[in-house]
């Protein structure tokens, strides 16, 4: 193994010297381009996120505060015929929501089991430029919960709305080190592998619903 490493490194160093051939090595960009649509005030970014998330095939409900979340989730489930069972991600914020106010819902905090169809998780940030969510793995957010269900419901606080992917990674960087995995999610799982026909829900969720909380956390 180390022999292979040394051989590859040796060839690379020779090749790089030949590539530069007297000239300077290629420099990094002085500054990185941020598309204009990734910039703007919070209200502008929230509006753009909304537009782009719908464009990517997600749906959105906007509510005023955390207390309104369970009722919004219940309405979404009945509207979409998704039954009345859901799995909650063990995030403190989601667990604090008044789920007992919607007794029709059978709410569990557990691993995803066969037959489960819906999970609610918390997003780290919203990215306006493409209507994208940033989620991360961790004790309070099992990665499987945004992959296995038929419908993934993501709770997003508008205070975490940012313009660009870079801004979202900044928010992530605040709880260093990096999580095992951080994922930018844009719309539901999709494919066009059969005759280029766009189809939704290959291996991941068929539906991505975003509960956008406007205002302060309670």
């Amino acid at each position, binding site marked *: *193994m180390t022999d*292979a*490493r040394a051989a*590859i*490194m040796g*060839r*690379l160093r020779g*090749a*790089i*010297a030949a*590539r*530069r051939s007297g000239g300077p*090595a*290629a*420099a*990094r*960009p002085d500054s*990185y*381009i941020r*598309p*204009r*649509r990734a910039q703007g005030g919070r209200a502008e970014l929230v509006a753009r996120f909304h537009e782009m998330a719908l*464009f*990517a095939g997600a749906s959105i409900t906007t509510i005023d505060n955390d207390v309104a979340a369970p009722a919004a989730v219940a309405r979404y489930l009945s509207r979409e015929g998704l039954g009345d069972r859901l799995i909650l991600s063990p995030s403190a914020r989601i667990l604090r929501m008044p789920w007992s106010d919607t007794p029709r819902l059978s709410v569990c905090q557990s691993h995803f089991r066969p037959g489960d169809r819906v999970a609610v998780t918390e997003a780290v940030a919203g990215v306006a430029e*493409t209507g994208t969510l940033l989620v991360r*793995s*961790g*004790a309070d957010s*099992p*990665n*499987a919960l945004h*992959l*296995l269900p038929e419908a993934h419901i993501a709770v997003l606080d508008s205070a975490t709305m940012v313009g660009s*992917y*870079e801004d979202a*990674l900044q928010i992530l960087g605040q709880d260093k*080190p*990096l999580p*095992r*995995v*951080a*994922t*930018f*999610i*844009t719309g*539901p*799982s*999709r*494919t*066009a*592998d*059969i*005759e*280029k*026909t766009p189809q939704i*829900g*290959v*291996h*991941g*969720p068929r539906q991505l619903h975003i509960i956008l909380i406007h205002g302060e956390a309670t």
Partner: protein
Amino acid sequence: MQPDPSAFSANARLALDNTKLQQALGKLQGDFRRDRASMLCRLPEFEALRDQARVIKDHALDHLDGYLEQFEERVASRGGAVHWCEDAAAARETILRLCRESGGSRILKGKSMLSEEIELNDFLSENGLDPVETDLGEYILQLRRERPSHVVMPAIHLNAQQVGDAFRAGHTDLNPSRDLDHPNDLLAEARAKLRQKFLNSDVGITGANFLVAETGSIVLVTNEGNGDLLHTLSDTHIVLAGIEKIVPTLSDAVALVRVLARSATTQEITSYTSVISGPRQASDPDGPSVFHVVLVDNGRSGLLGSAFSDVLRCIRCGACQSLCPVYGAVGGHAYGAVYSGPIGSILTPALVGLKAAKPLPEASSFCGQCQDVCPVHIPLPALLRRWREIIFDDPALSDTVRAGIKIWAYAARRPRLYRFFQRLAVALLAALGRKSGFIRNLPLAGDWAGARDLPAPQGGTFMSQWRNHKPHEPQS
């Protein structure tokens, strides 16, 4: 079709007569043109982002050794391991060993062009392991025992009926008279079949779109979510990546993400773009306990110091295939190689040798559209031309061809002589087509004229007409 690039001419003939294939290719190229134009209108900065992408990749390639060392160290600090492989055989052996060390037998795979390059699946099967492809297109191809015909749309050459036939033949446990007429039925069946496999996966093998030196992360891009299910549900995650995939920082990676999906499928971004940094941590409720990165050279370090080093910027988006008129006429399989289209015609001679791949650099009209859409500005026509120059110098080239090219080159550098031959040719062609106004038989170009009617020249050459024409006086 033969999986052999030297059979390009014969393969192309078969492809041109294949109506199903022609329909699929027509749809691919028509849709791509239209959707790419819409994408460009939505993002005015796209051209600037392409320029930036080239700079990022060039910088990374000029410092490949240092960034790879940094990457290796960071992966180790996150609890993962990096394995260096000089060639395809070493990469196959390494992955087999890692699969065996895992103790598991259920191996699942995400889409990886490099795994095709090193012929991983056949090798694992020969050694008693049966990896299952999870990308829908690759899964279909695995059932049909075929190679992908496009970098990002691997099963683009098939129609729904062919996929249905493959599912009936492969899923023998299901009711043979079930309905599979609609793509939705096919999708539902594949989802159900593969979901069971995901839930029981021991080893997940994926590619990587980018390797991030600063953080030791890999960036993995999918639309289906299969890659994320693989690393989340498997005990062992093996990442297979070429050494040229490295970028310095996460900022560089997301800058490239902005051009990748837009170039590949004209989407704004794929559904899932994951930054994966090592195995599960103590607090993680899921994720693999073992994380390996298998770094493969397989000729890349040789390309880096060569006249072809620009191809190492390639981020495998397939835009050059989706627009190429030659690819659009014959499809990917006619190239008889892992990589097809313009990028394949440059990579294949480097990977398998010019002797076998000689027809591929010739399979270009030099229209230049590939270069116009390449997200990292690879000068594809210039590199194809460079292969043709090498072919010209090759002693194996037939003497008649070389003599012909030499005569042409001699005349082309002597305008008077060239014009003399032109006048002669015009007079000859005019005589040949005097009766009908068209030429149906052309000496030395019978094949070409067999499928076309060449209009006979009217009047003299362009140059002689130009001389007789009173040019506009420029207004002062």
